């Protein structure tokens, strides 16, 4: 059963990821991204990280992808772009070879070090033993005790991001084309 869930979720994740990279229409790419994010959420659930699975769906699929779609529609780039032309001939093969090499390196490291992954933490409380909100309580205890300063800094980051975006995206009267030619 666990194997079945893993295989299905992995298929979702990989199909979505390939869709993001290969689809020529940005809207299709954004929808493929949703598939990947749901696959990741399924994997979080199967690893007893229920809180993160919920946050993943709400924040990523609910907020970030919708923001992407808004920007795609706002800019009017919801048409297929031509992927056949490539200004730098060497770039594509080079990028693929580089990435394959990097993945091979990562996989080799994972296989090399898998025996050193022993339990050494304080233990996870999971919902398996009848305590249904054990995971969320444990994360809350961690965030609001050990990482409370980081949590506060996060709120500052969010405020700065919101204000910065408003300033960036505002239409100014003295807007000039960056090429110097007025649009």
């Amino acid at each position: 059963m666990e194997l079945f869930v893993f295989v299905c979720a992995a298929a979702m994740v990989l199909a979505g990821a390939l869709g993001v990279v290969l689809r020529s229409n940005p809207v299709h790419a954004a929808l493929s991204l949703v598939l990947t994010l749901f696959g990741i959420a399924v994997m979080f659930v199967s690893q007893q990280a229920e809180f993160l699975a919920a946050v993943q769906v709400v924040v990523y699929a609910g907020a970030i992808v919708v923001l992407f779609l808004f920007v795609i529609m706002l800019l009017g780039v919801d048409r297929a772009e031509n992927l056949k032309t490539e200004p730098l001939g060497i770039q594509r093969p080079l990028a693929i070879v580089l990435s394959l090499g990097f993945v091979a390196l990562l996989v080799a490291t994972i296989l090399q070090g898998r025996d050193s992954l022993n339990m050494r933490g304080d233990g996870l409380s999971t919902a398996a033993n009848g305590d249904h909100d054990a995971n969320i309580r444990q994360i809350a205890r961690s965030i609001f005790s050990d990482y409370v300063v980081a949590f506060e800094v996060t709120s500052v980051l969010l405020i700065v991001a919101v204000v910065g975006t408003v300033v960036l995206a505002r239409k100014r009267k003295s807007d000039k084309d960056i090429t110097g030619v007025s649009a």
Partner: protein
Amino acid sequence: MLATIAPTSTWYLILGAVLFGIGMVGVLVRRNPLIMFMSIELMLNAVNLTFVALSTQLTDINGQTAVFFVLVVAAAEVVVGLGIIVAIMRRRSEVSVDDLSALKG
């Protein structure tokens, strides 16, 4: 036979590595800044998957806390990045990062 095989954390780590590689190809190959952003999201998700897999394997909640912070920072990053893209692309019809090679004011 198949039912007895349970996926170990190594499987999740390898899937995370492959997902990171796909995202890397996306960032390096695609010219549309929106698609590049989505590829960065793929890479962030690969890292999140790795964090959770190791958190489960090592029975340590700190990995899941780190994922929480990664989610928040990713949200902020997307908001600012898309703001910049909107600010730039409003004035030009072509959507390609190659058009932005000259960073003149």
